[in-house]
């Protein structure tokens, strides 16, 4: 590649960087701007002239953001635990045990995977409502606490374990449970991590379902609480900015810590539409 071509390449990459990360950086800058800052200065100023943390305390004073974080955390915890346990158990049975109707059951999970959640969400709500779980965090978590996609991902994970490994354990007299727990599960830790991460992100970011299920404010998850930001602070973009940054911190921390799994999960074919 010639020199000009290389320069051109990095210019385009830089443009994309500004486009994709720029809005976040601008939001960060906005959240620290104080009363002395002209928000509408020409040209726009990135470094605050009158830096303050007042916007953050302002949001925390007026909205119970920490409560929202706690609620989201509870939902995410239920969903992640349910998916790891449920999908691992079912994936193992589908991949490594032989029984009648195995194909049928696998087919059921495939069908469930193909049903778009938006098209059944009203019926889901009626169901949750009739069981008395409307407006509870458990009601938010239950429908997604074992996703068909994750069951099939775990099944694929278990399928690639060489049969010899399990056979050796069987000769030593290990029963199903021991083969599951001591032989197979340690082999699929990577897939389990991917399942955990994607369930976490999905639960943490979900908006439509909590919006339908939850009605009282003390049960709001973070996305619902944030939705109120716009109404509450419409006139002050700095407060909205501070609110979004607070909401972003947990998910960015997870992303920073487990970055390689995010990419690995996508490459492994764990595509979520």
């Amino acid at each position: 590649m010639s020199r000009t071509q290389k320069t051109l390449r990095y210019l385009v990459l830089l443009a994309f960087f500004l486009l994709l990360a720029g809005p976040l950086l601008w939001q960060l800058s906005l959240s620290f701007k104080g009363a002395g800052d002209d928000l509408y200065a020409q040209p726009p100023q990135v470094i605050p002239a009158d830096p303050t943390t007042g916007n953050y305390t302002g949001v925390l004073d007026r909205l119970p953001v920490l409560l929202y974080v706690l609620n989201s955390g509870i939902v995410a915890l239920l969903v992640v635990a349910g998916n790891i346990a449920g999908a691992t158990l079912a994936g193992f049975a589908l991949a490594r045990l032989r029984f009648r109707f195995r194909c049928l059951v696998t087919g059921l999970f495939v069908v469930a995977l193909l049903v778009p959640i938006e098209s059944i969400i009203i019926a889901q709500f009626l169901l949750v409502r009739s069981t008395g779980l409307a407006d509870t965090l458990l009601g938010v978590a239950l429908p997604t606490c074992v996703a068909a996609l994750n069951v099939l991902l775990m099944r694929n994970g278990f399928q690639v374990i060489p049969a010899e490994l399990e056979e050796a354990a069987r000769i030593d007299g290990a029963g199903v449970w021991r083969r599951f727990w001591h032989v197979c599960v340690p082999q699929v830790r990577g897939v389990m991590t991917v399942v955990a991460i994607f369930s976490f992100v999905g639960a943490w970011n979900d908006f439509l379902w909590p919006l339908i299920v939850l009605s009282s404010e003390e049960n709001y998850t973070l996305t619902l609480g944030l939705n109120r930001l716009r109404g509450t602070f419409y006139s002050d973009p700095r407060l909205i900015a501070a609110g979004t940054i607070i909401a972003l911190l947990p998910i960015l921390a997870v992303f920073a810590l487990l970055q390689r799994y995010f990419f690995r999960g996508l490459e492994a074919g764990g595509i979520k539409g």
Partner: protein
Amino acid sequence: MTATPVRRDTTATGTMPPRARPGRGGIGRTHDRWWTPWLFLVPALAIVVVFILFPFANTLALSATDATLLKPGQFVGADNFVRLWHDDRFRTAMTNSLLYVVCVVPVMVAAPLVLAALANGTTRILGFLRTAYYLPVVMSSVIVGLIWTNLLDSRGLVNQVLDWLGVISEPVPFLSGRWLTLLSAMVVTIWTGLGYYMVIYLAALANIDPALYDAASVDGAGPIRQFLHVTVPGVRTTSALIGLFSSVSAFRVFGEVYILTGGTGGVGGQNITITMLIQQEGTGLQAETGYAGAISVVMFVVLGLLLAGQLWFQRRGGSR
């Protein structure tokens, strides 16, 4: 298959036939009791049957009734669907959602590939850039919507910059007016999806034989011709898959439009999408769950047609 009840599976002693090849269809026993596999399956199966398959069947049933949130309703046959046909809100929602697919999908198939080709490499700076590009993907549509509400406001950064550059003399009302709001929402959706599909393309790029690039380079092909003649054909299967996934998710769009229009769907519901319509008709005290069920069924059918259409198109196009 032998069915001799031996002992509890969990005990360590006792010998088992060593011939069995679990999961590969060989002859042999994987467990002792017929219900052992079902114990493993119960949690997942229960959730999926109760919360996905049953509601799906119930949606079909609801769509043929005049049920509301407060009463079960009676069978009305295809009345809901006839009503849909004449419902302006439904027409608007369908138009908006389909427009979303038509406008967003081509960008989602093409732009991330360019991005992936440019950002592919092992240097540190490229790794950093890829991570930065992925950031919008992990954010919830609510946060994304709020960030862009700030940016696209009549006094927001986008208008500031355009004004500063002298491109415009008065602020562009990005968040009002039917088409401009819809366009803004599409931009936001694309902004969130670029990094996601880039990562999928990166995995596909890794599977292209480097010798092809060498050969092209020997033949005197520059970077652009290499991209068009080696990269693009090399990731064809992935492109098809991304077309499929992005059209399904574009048709289902909800969060971005909801937040950008402040939860209303725009003046007179002009920016409403199918998912928003389901949410508005099916919740609240005046909820008409039967009618919402009919909209849901139509949504399901359209998504099925989208998938089938794309598969058919790809078959014909000769790609595998």
